[in-house]
């Protein structure tokens, strides 16, 4: 059983997942901002940005650095790769769900968007911390030697 995956391939897949996850909520927020649905759009974007863009920047930067490197293709643990993928997917769904819930509350006139986001931020902060730890360990961990295993 293969217990490792080429690091570059894993990083690219993770970056792709993150960009896909970031695209939808960013477009949704952008469109609603254009429609002037928020009383304080600056505050809404100030809340949203730290949950996505720093991690995206880190991932893109690491990917670029690795491509510049002349080192031999490295391998990464498959376990950590799957862990990062799972956490990233969960985090993306939680973030998107938070935005949907905030917009629904506002359209029903039960709670303003920013208030809903602030309530959900408590949960997202915890998940983001865990995810950043996993991604950081994955992206900067020394490559593991190829282990040949037989089924």
């Amino acid at each position, binding site marked *: 059983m293969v217990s490792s995956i080429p690091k570059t391939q894993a990083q690219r897949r993770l970056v792709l997942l993150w960009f896909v996850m970031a695209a939808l909520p960013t477009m*949704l927020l952008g*469109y*609603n901002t254009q*429609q*002037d*649905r*928020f*009383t304080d759009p600056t505050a809404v974007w100030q809340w949203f940005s730290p949950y996505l863009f720093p991690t995206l920047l880190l991932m893109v930067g690491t990917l670029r650095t690795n491509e510049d490197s002349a080192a031999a293709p490295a391998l990464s643990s498959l376990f950590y790769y799957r862990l990062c993928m799972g956490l990233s997917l969960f985090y993306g769904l939680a973030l998107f769900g938070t935005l*949907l819930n905030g*917009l*629904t509350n*506002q*359209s*029903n*006139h*039960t709670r*303003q968007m920013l208030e809903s986001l602030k309530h959900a931020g408590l949960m997202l902060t915890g998940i983001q911390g865990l995810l950043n730890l996993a991604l950081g360990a994955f992206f900067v961990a020394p490559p593991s030697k190829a282990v040949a295993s037989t089924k």
Partner: protein
Amino acid sequence: MKRHRPLVFCWVALWVQVWLALSAGAQPTPGRLVIKGRVVTVDSIGIHEVLVQLVGLPVATSTDSWGNFSLETTRSVAGRLPSGPVSIRATHAGYADQQVDVVPGLPTMVDGQTLALAAPLLVMRAIRPRMMRRLMSASPAPAQAPQMPTLDWPPPKPSTQCVLPPQFLAGATQLRHADDRLRTALSRAGYGTPAYYQIPNGFALVTQLEQISPDAKPLPAPQRWSVQIAPTQKVADWLKSLVIARAGRFRVLVFTVTDAPFAPSRTEISRKAAMAWLGNGLNVLPPAIGAQPCSADCRVTALVYEFEKVETQPESKLVPQSSVLGGVQLVRTGILPALP
């Protein structure tokens, strides 16, 4: 003889008692003054419960259901009448006081004699609210039912309005007839108990705040009577709400019944103030107002106050000009087709 003394004594006592009784009955009865008459409206209809009092004395009575009265007093009391004509005064809520002279001067009364006088027919005229307010402010009003609150007049600027066709009041001779027809139409359209206010020469009727759709149709209950915007029920509406702001629309109807033309003021009312109308008015039209005549010039005007609440605004705002005409709104609420 001694043996018969008790018997004799009883006989004597018995006849003494008989003599005393007969003596008492033989005393002359005091004279009485009786004044009889009737109180009617201008249409010769008897008025019930009219207070009729003898001017100058604390003697009064009330009319029966046919408007008849009989005012009685003793000769000794009648003797305290001031010199001059003997007069009676009729008083009743919603009508102007009426005073008539029965006789130019009190005739001589004899003990044991009943002096019966016939009063002229008292015709009482209904008075308008403005006159009633003037009269009540001139003299202290006795403790009665709460006064009818007055609506801001001229009324605040509505989103739209509609004068109901004259056929609505066809055959109505009193304001209560117009009230009955309005209440029936509102009840059939699903409205609850309205609130009543006094306006010049008539009355105003205010409905409860209701939630409506953008085409002015009332939402189905219970969302119709909720002051909160109804949440989305369908998935398509929910998806739409993610990209398009939703606004809630509310409406209050005010029906004015009066023969005095009016133009609404430029004052804009808030939704909160419109909701307060329902709580501050009377629950029924007072009989005194309802008994007022409904002239041929009397008209029913529906004032429609629409309010819109957007997501980003904490309070609703009055819609300055509704996109749906007043008459169309009355049709869509079910009021206009339900009119008799």
